[in-house]
């Protein structure tokens, strides 16, 4: 997958929708801006969040950044690989998701940005 396969929110998360489920990651811009990622503070499977809630944090050596839920819903999977190898997201941000969610409000997907609309915000 690459950047063209994703929808975005302006807080730099990408969303890849399959039915009522979606994988969520961070954009290549976000990964590059953070520098070397050393840690993800991940949620638990089963946690539920509203759109816009902080659901995880991504940390470089120097700084911590919150990640925001792009759609309301429940965490159904976390990418366990990121526990020991968080740098995978630096290497390939679009093929290393952070969480998978089951979203609850189809209407919210209409507010997601296309790649062009997202890149226009940078």
């Amino acid at each position: 997958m690459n950047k063209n396969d994703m929808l975005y929110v302006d807080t730099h998360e990408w969303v890849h929708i399959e039915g009522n489920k979606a994988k969520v990651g961070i954009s290549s811009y976000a990964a590059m801006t953070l520098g070397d990622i050393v840690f993800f503070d991940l949620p638990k499977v089963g946690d539920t969040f509203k759109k816009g809630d902080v659901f995880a944090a991504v940390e470089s050596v120097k700084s911590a950044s919150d990640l925001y839920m792009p759609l309301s819903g429940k965490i159904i999977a976390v990418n366990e690989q990121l526990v020991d190898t968080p740098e995978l997201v630096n290497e390939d941000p679009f093929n290393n998701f952070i969480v998978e969610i089951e979203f609850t409000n189809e209407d919210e997907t209409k507010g997601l940005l296309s790649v062009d609309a997202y890149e226009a915000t940078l």
Partner: protein
Amino acid sequence: MGSIKRTTLYDKHVALNAHLIDFGGFHMPLYYTTITDEHHQVRNDVGMFDVSHMGQIVLQGKDAHKFANYVLSANIQVTDKIQYALLLNDDGGIIDDLMVYPFSENQILLVVNASNIEKDVNHLNLYKKDYQVDVRNLSDAFNCLAIQGPRSFEILSTIFDTLPKHSSDYIFSTDERGPLLISRSGYTGEDGFEIYAHAQFTQTLWDKLYQAGVTPIGLGARDTLRFEAGMPLYGQEMDETINPFEAGLSFAVDLNKHDFIGKTSSQFNKDNLLRKSVGFELLEKNIARTGYEVYKDGVKIGYVTTGYLTPTTKKGLGFALIDVKYAKLETKIAIKIRNKFVQALVRNKRFIQKNNKV
């Protein structure tokens, strides 16, 4: 306040594509490649830092040595060894921490933190009235390169005929290229050297070292390196409301000295501390950042002053200033990270045990 200053090596940092930040009023490289890679480079091999932002203040005159002992916490002796000391205010709070190069009775060099240069000069001028001494700020005239890491001696001995033999030794000389000061010292927990000189010499030395394959290292790795080695940073572990005993710096204070600023303050009591700076290790993988709150049994007992998931240890480690009742090694504390409490153990601040002294 003027604009942000550039060191004499600024163009070289830009040419190397360094990620620059404003640090202490200077454009300084935070990293050139990544903080993690640069950290390992210094721990395992050798690297060089532009630390020209550091300030150089010379105490000059008949009473220079006497004055140094009045304004500094440590007992300064005129020797060929550098000494670590603190400038204190009347309440015993820390105005700055610095390195002392005690050249002679009438000439003492203080190397101070960039962000404190002006404050230190003002403080020294305020207290000098009974002493025959000039306070000279030579910060703009001097540049400093720090060469750090287990191979630093090997590399520098290809350039210099004479180098300081033992840790803390310094050698001062002057020739047609200007003054040259080399000390065997640093801020990384590794063997290393700090080399002070005028602009031209510093630029030439940087180029020679770069051509010899020495990796430039930014201030990001400088901070992770000093932190792993248990060294404090002004503005984090120290400020004007924290005294040396709270900061764990009693080794830099000589209470047997007749008199020095701060000594007679009522708060200046090492046996009656309320807070203490401690090291801690998180018991699960996470990162405790500066300013996060520290708890014991649900009660707030202090705050984190520096924290990292450090490149060498790969553990979540930190320094915190906490209620002295919980400062004993192995005490269980909790750090509030975002919305959860992460358990931690109080431990020795020296997170890496490496014998770097020569």
